[in-house]
């Protein structure tokens, strides 16, 4: 600890090598080559751990019926890659219908959450009326309720509405999430309100101010809400498991669980099913990762 580490001056005094990029640490200082190499080794090790299981699943799904998937040592590359398992999974369970069901729920969840959270968030942040504080409190309380604890009562409520075993029933409880409302409220609060004031003076009514001024200013947060709404609905497991009983109406997650339970012996099939479920999400994520990371980061900073 007290031994001499080359201080900043010494590092900077080193003859600068002609390089295109200069590896620097978080403080903008140059990094040594061995340290950089160590970093890449560690990064690759973690990469193998995080991505490896997905690739193994993909590989399993591509292995043909005559290939030994239990070989030892394990073989990563299918000797004779085939899409046959994807056909078979569609013959076994209506996997594309399930995917379509998931897509319907997820898309509807995006719309309802964006609209509902933007409207409510605007009302909480920008409008003045008696009971605004109470309304805010309602959303805060709702955010604190652990959903896992209320599923039985939700199920009973849904049954009273006659919506059990329907996709609407899957959608409804989460279609405007309290967390999203509060996210939108924070976003609207951060918009400088002089602009809206100017519009007000110019005679814009509340809807005009909402649509033309406030909403465009919070597009980033809206995108985050949309992404999380989609992922949340596409990934949800516990609630659809409880609401849906009829295999015709399953969403993809429940369908996969069903497939796993019924055809546990054929790993190739289950693997193909999981690849179908995860691929759209990975593609979506790859396209939108900028918003993603910003959103998660923002959420964290604001707590």
């Amino acid at each position, binding site marked *: 600890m007290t031994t001499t580490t080359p201080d900043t001056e010494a590092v900077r005094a080193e003859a600068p090598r002609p390089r295109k990029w200069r590896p620097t640490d978080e*403080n903008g200082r140059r990094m040594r080559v061995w340290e950089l190499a160590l970093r890449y080794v560690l990064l690759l090790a973690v990469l193998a751990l995080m991505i490896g299981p997905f690739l193994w699943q993909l590989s399993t799904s591509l292995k043909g019926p005559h290939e030994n998937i239990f070989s030892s040592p394990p073989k990563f590359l299918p000797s004779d890659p085939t899409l046959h398992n994807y056909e078979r999974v569609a013959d076994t369970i209506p996997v594309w219908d399930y995917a379509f069901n998931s897509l319907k729920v997820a898309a509807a969840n995006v719309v309802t959450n964006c609209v509902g959270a933007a409207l409510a968030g605007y009302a909480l942040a920008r409008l003045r009326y008696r009971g605004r504080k109470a309304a805010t409190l309602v959303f805060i309380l709702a955010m604190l309720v652990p959903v896992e*604890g209320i599923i039985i009562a939700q199920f009973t409520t849904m049954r009273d509405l006659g919506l059990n075993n329907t996709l609407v029933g899957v959608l409804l409880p989460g279609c405007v999430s*309290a967390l999203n409302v509060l996210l939108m409220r924070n976003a609207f609060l951060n918009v400088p309100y002089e602009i809206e004031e100017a519009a007000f003076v110019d005679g814009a009514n509340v809807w005009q101010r909402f649509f033309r001024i406030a909403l465009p200013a919070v597009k980033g947060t809206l995108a985050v809400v949309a992404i999380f709404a989609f992922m949340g609905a596409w990934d949800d497991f516990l609630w659809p498991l409880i609401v849906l009983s009829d295999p015709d109406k399953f969403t993809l997650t429940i369908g996969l669980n069903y497939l796993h339970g019924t055809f546990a012996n054929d790993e190739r099939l289950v693997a193909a099913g999981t690849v179908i479920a995860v691929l759209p999400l990975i593609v979506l994520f790859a396209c939108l990762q900028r918003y993603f990371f910003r959103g998660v980061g923002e959420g964290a900073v604001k707590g």
Partner: protein
Amino acid sequence: MTAMKTPSPATSPAPPAGGAPRATKAARAPRAGRRVRRQLPTSPWLFAAPGLVIVGWFILYPFVSTVLNSFTDKRQLVEGKYVGLANFRELLHDDMFWIGLRNSTLYVLVVVPALVILPLLLAMLVQKQIPGITFFRSAFYTPVVASIVVVGLIWVWMLDERGLVNAVLEAVGAGKVGFLSDQWLLLFSAMAVTVWKGLGYYMIIYLAALANVPRELHEAAAVDGAGPVRRFVSVTMPAVRSTMVLVAALSSVAAFKVFSEVYLMAGPTGGPAGEDTTLVMLVQRTGTGLTGRVGYASAISVVIFVVTVALMLLVLRADRKENR
């Protein structure tokens, strides 16, 4: 001029004429020769209504009825009557409840420390702007994106007796391990999967916190001769401490309510002799179906509420203590 031009932030954080009643009043006031005429008779409640209805109907009302139901012997399709604390008394003698409570608590004790420390180390690893780092960050986030069912099924296959992990273990001469057949190994495997899936999520949270650590602090420490370890303990850790508390709070609440991982890996009945059942699995099992005991399941839910709130308070209190 009017008060509008110089709004004092302390008194009015919102535009003065958002709501209908005020809007009409404002419209009457002469303002720089203009009048607000096109104010629609819109109540602000119209904005908040969709959210309030959904949240009230499907979150708060079920919450209240869960608490009320916990004092009844209500079943699915059968109205219950008030039975006082009978459900809670029964819980005390229900082995399954204690198994669930034990497993959920164990889950918190193992998963939370791992999710407070490991993602921080990971965040430090991906923090530096070196070529390709964006790719690594995204790749590490993939398990977060993948749905829990996919993740669960992938690991069921990986940890299967004939799966990849065992094949590797056998190849190196370590012999097979029955990850999914032993009660404890199964539970710890599920914990490992939870940690694996959560790493990327908390990594991003830490990344945001690390970005806010003042560079000067590190430089000053380096000038004073502090090595990397010393700088981590004395500069980085204090700077991200509040984030660590946040991560601890988020992950402990999530870990206590674990359902999917264990359900998928251990099966609906919770592994050998149901020994891997968690509390939420127990709620799902006892409360649903035509004969589901709503009252009893609600009592378990109330225990979940209480422990969740207690966990939050505990974490926050630990935070305050350290702050002093």
